[in-house]
């Protein structure tokens, strides 16, 4: 299945209702009543309760303003130096601290993959990398700022846990739940996620969380993919299609058994993610289902393995099919409807 919606409409600059780039650095909407970036709020709260928690900023200090005001002595500015940030964090972690490195997703994992592997994961140290602005959230800034390979790289690193919260409440839940986890954790924050949960959900580490029951087709996503799936499921229900919606916030360890069980149950799985089709959830689900020898129809809405367009995120989501109508359409196509 193609990851791109055929004939997608790209608005021209002449159109008056074109979406605008919002200020992704200082105004991160959550639609859940949280005034600012959820990761920034949660880390400040975690820091109140746990003196081992430090924050290191690789030039993303805005998110850490609250933490910094409450715990200035535990805020460490690292400058524009991601690799050094991870290795310094490894040294801090080896000395009893739980350091959180905040970075832009486009640079956090790719620039530091070797430091994450050799320094943090290999030594089982509790370094946390919080990657903001995932996928195409910085789409207007250029291809350099697309963060679309990070899951593929991160999940290949033994001992590195990977979580991709579905919304602001999910951020709260997963950041709280991973403070004491052994080894490093990559927390992938999707600013463009729509609300899924009314309160912080309870995940079991390494397991899928079922958000909606349905017998006809499985919609599984991480990050912004979950909110899209949930809204698409509501549309599908109006047309008589009952979709199961799974939140794959835990990408590593990954719940292959849960995927296989769902594939057996519905016989059709559609993955939804703001990540390259290579190596992300699309690959993980295909690997799980294929290894289990289960016959199921597989589809993926992901970013194609090609040089991506640059533009305001809303335009790019249209272009690449990360929309509620497209999720519903692809689900039906998977069922031959």
């Amino acid at each position, binding site marked *: 299945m193609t990851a791109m919606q055929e004939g997608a409409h790209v608005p021209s600059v002449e159109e008056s209702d074109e979406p605008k780039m919002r200020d992704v650095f200082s105004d991160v909407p959550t639609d859940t009543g949280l005034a600012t970036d959820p990761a920034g709020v949660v880390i400040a709260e975690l820091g109140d309760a746990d003196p081992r928690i*430090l924050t290191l900023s690789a030039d993303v200090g805005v998110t850490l303003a609250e933490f910094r005001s409450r715990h200035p*002595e*535990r805020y*460490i500015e*690292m*400058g524009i*130096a991601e*690799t*050094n940030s991870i*290795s*310094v*964090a*490894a*040294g*801090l*972690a*080896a*000395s*009893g*601290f739980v*350091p959180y490195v905040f970075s832009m997703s486009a640079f956090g994992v790719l620039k530091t993959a*070797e*430091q994450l592997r*050799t*320094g943090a994961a*290999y*030594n*089982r140290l509790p370094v946390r990398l919080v990657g903001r602005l995932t996928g195409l959230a910085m789409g207007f800034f250029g291809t350099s700022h697309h963060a679309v390979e990070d899951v593929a790289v991160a999940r290949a690193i033994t001992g590195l846990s990977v979580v991709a919260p579905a919304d602001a409440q999910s951020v709260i839940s997963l950041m709280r739940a991973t403070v004491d986890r052994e080894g490093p954790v990559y927390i992938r924050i999707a600013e463009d996620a729509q609300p899924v949960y009314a309160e912080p959900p309870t995940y079991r580490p390494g397991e899928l969380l079922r958000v909606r029951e349905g017998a006809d087709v499985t919609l599984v996503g991480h990050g912004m993919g979950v909110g899209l799936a949930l809204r698409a499921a509501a549309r599908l229900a109006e047309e008589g299609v009952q979709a199961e919606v799974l939140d794959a916030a835990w990408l590593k360890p990954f719940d292959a058994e849960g995927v296989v069980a769902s594939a057996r149950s519905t016989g059709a799985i559609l993955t939804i993610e703001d990540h390259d089709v290579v190596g992300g959830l699309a690959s993980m689900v295909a690997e799980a289902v294929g290894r289990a020898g289960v016959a199921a129809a597989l589809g993926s809405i992901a970013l194609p393995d090609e040089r991506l367009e640059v533009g305001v995120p809303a335009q790019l989501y249209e272009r690449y099919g990360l929309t509620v109508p497209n999720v519903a359409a692809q689900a039906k196509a998977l069922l031959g409807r």
Partner: protein
Amino acid sequence: MRVDTAPPATTPAPSDGDDGGPTLDRGRSITPVELARRADWIRLQTIELIDRAGLGHYSSTFSSAEVFATLYYRTLRLRPSDPAWPDRDRFLLGKGHAATGLWPVLADLGFFPTEWLDTFGTAGTALNDHPDMLRAPGIDFSSGSLGQNLSVGTGIALAGRLQERDYRTFVLTGDGELQEGQVWEAVMAASHYRLGNLVAVVDANGFSGSGPTSDAMGIEPLAARFESFGWAVREIDGHDPEALLSAFDTLPDPSAEQPVCVIARTRKGKGVRMMEEAPQAWHLGHLGPDLRRQVVEEISGRMP
């Protein structure tokens, strides 16, 4: 052929610690002659260990031998029976490929049984060619990927500041390792955070794996470069026991605000003529029985 690897009679008597076992204090007594003998003992031990494994880094380890001897038998505050003791001085082997010279030292000081040395080069050993902190007691951080340990040491030194502990963190880098850009991110951060509790020791032996370091990529003038990044620099003969003792005995108090770089000018393969003459050939290799006998005689013959 069995090599006489009895340690020199300079192993210090430890003082009693307040809780987790005896502490080896800073400034332990060792004469320059004893230090030179200890360094040659490290060379002989290295030859024996590499013989067990079948392959190893002779010349890179030999250039570090006097630095190892000075730090571990004079300078570092250690508690071998309690390797995680929070107030210990840290030592990070940035040039992880010299770990073979560290294993006999750590065994001799009591971090693990000497019998462990017999496992070197076998599957399941705690003593790798590059050190692994999860396997070997006394290793403060794993290494093997060049260019990262000065950053890690910066983090450990920062932790010392945050915890108000007075330990020092030493990081031994190769000179070729300084070609890694991350090293300079760490050099910048260490002076920014005024980490006078951090000491970088550069084993400036002038050679990398494939040839002269500065032929591949010029790294000089090292002293001026570190100074321009805000570090205090001492440049010494890295094989001169008196110079090493003097440099490390006069380090500023850990509460000082300027990180220190000791540039140890060394010879790759030091102590074995044929390796000094062909350091690249012995970056990674194995002495056959005849060469081994010759090399051991050369080293043993000058040991007092």
